[in-house]
């Protein structure tokens, strides 16, 4: 396919699908973790809940945009998956721990 050939890296269909999956779903997971951790930490630091929720979502959307672009720019697809899925899980874990320390 000419579209795959346009990519600057060796990209058979499966690899391309893995990259798109990393950008979309990995990016979402990472952003979720970022927003949850951000909201919980800012709330713990004394910010109003809805303020913390808003601020972390707004920043989290910019984070999503950044990691989305990065996933297409990087050559290291495995690293992208590890950072996005692993980092997302880690951040979500932080959010739950912070919540548990408050409630």
């Amino acid at each position: 396919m000419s579209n795959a050939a346009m990519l600057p890296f060796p990209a058979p269909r499966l690899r391309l699908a893995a990259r798109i999956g990393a950008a979309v779903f990995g990016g979402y997971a990472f952003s979720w973790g970022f927003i949850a951790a951000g909201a919980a930490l800012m709330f713990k630091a004394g910010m109003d809940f809805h303020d913390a929720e808003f601020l972390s979502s707004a920043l989290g959307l910019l984070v999503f945009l950044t990691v989305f672009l990065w996933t297409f720019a990087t050559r290291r697809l495995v690293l992208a998956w590890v950072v996005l899925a692993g980092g997302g899980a880690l951040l979500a874990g932080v959010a739950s721990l912070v919540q548990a320390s408050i409630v």
Partner: protein
Amino acid sequence: MAAQGVAAQSFRQAMAWLHTWFGLVLGFVLMAAFFFGALSVFDREIDRWAIPSTRFEPQPMPSYEQILRPAFERMQPTQQAIDAMRPRVDGPMPEHFDTVANWSAYTTHRDPVLALFAGFQVPGAKDPDEAIFALGTIDPRDGTALPDDRLKIGSGFFYPMHYSLTLDWKNLGVWIVGFSALVMLAALVSGVVMHRKFFRELFTFRPGKGGLRSVLDLHNLTGVVALPFHFFFAFTGLVIFSATYFFPVGHTQLHDLHDLHAATEASELGLPHKRAGVPAGLANVDAMVAEAQRRWAARDMAGDVGFLVLQHVGDANGYVSVYRAGTDRIALVGQGIHFKASTGVLIREDPVATPVGKVAEFLTGLHLQHFRHWLLRWLYVLGGLLGAVCIATGFVFFVEKRKRQHAKQGSQGARIVDALAVTMITGMVAATLGILVANRLLPDDLPARGDWERYAFWGTWALALLHAGLRSAPVARGLANPAWREQCGAIVVLALAAVGLNWITTGDHLLRTLGAGYWPVAGLDLALLATAAIAGATGLHLRRRAAATAAVEHPRREAAHA
């Protein structure tokens, strides 16, 4: 040095790939989001055009005691709402809903009619906090109920098209549009990366310089000139829905934190979260509204009421909240003042928003634009249409760049994309005109009239797709699809028909509406005429070009056959 050059080169190629293919696939959604977003800027004005009985001047929030109370007391959920709620209730649904959770009314400086909302407690609801809702629309001058089955084409159809494509099943449409907004942001960034001579290209437009070049210039021009606009609206659109749909951390993972916050907030504010279960009367609400307005004036911000809420109606814990209309503010409503319902005693005045709260008000308020600023309102339309042109030229460029090569290879790729682009560009405009024409043609007392209007919209669009597909064969030979110019012709006919039908069915022709300065209807009629003019000129231009191409191609093909 060389390695850096290669890395930069491949980075740019990766961004170009992202821009081309994500832009192609989700550009169709973005096209609708931008176009219907531009129309939504004047949603209430389009409502006036579509519902002639509401063609009168905007009204302030009416008196509660004289107008609102009788209207609220008449409100009950529709049979549809009751049926939808039934599976989430143990036991039978009541004949009449008596326990009012809340009553509210919302208006802006552009609303002649008033939207009313009522929430009722449902006995036996599996989630006791889940209320059943009723909506109503009244003429605020005398309280007359207006038929609510009449489709508000602007605020009730074009506006939901803008953010959800009206695909309500599991909020699918909201997710599709949301993901497309993310892709829009990515397309803007990658688009900038693709251009080495970004600033030189900023204002380059060479209309005479051959088709491909001028299409690309127009794509870059509309993308770059309005870049801050596109970025801001895609971003704030995501922000507005983020906590509700895309990242609802407060309702899911951080639910406990949210509950903790709600409980402390209720006790701090003195605004009871639940009913006391003790019946109580209601003091004079008009007096509370007058007191709220006096307090705003004392703060040097005299204003009208935008949002009036009665919480826990008929209960000792009931309270009344009066919010100031944001006509002269970016925030939608604000400066809430709360009174105890049974006595009318002041409970609290909302303090000035926190810095983060102000940022939130700014970002959402500037996107939703309920404040009064007509010039800015028109600039929003312009920005939205520039976005649509940017995406449309992106499609055209995609096709023009490939169609000759595809013709040589025998590929149908360019043909399919071109047919979809026709559907999405001229077809979408035709569908929009189709619903307006149907709105004026359908009998006034037709049952489920709004549904028929929607069918006219989707039916016109489906016809446009069919037509674009059937006429697309020349594209596979590297030529233009005649559907472009034919649908331009259809747009001219439909737009003129809409203006004419409005005149015939309501008597509101342009001389009358312009003479009376009634801009909601005059403005839409003028916009329809402008649409007809632009589509007509484009159609003629395409016809001339097709004739010129045929003159060149014909002898060449004859020669090939010989």
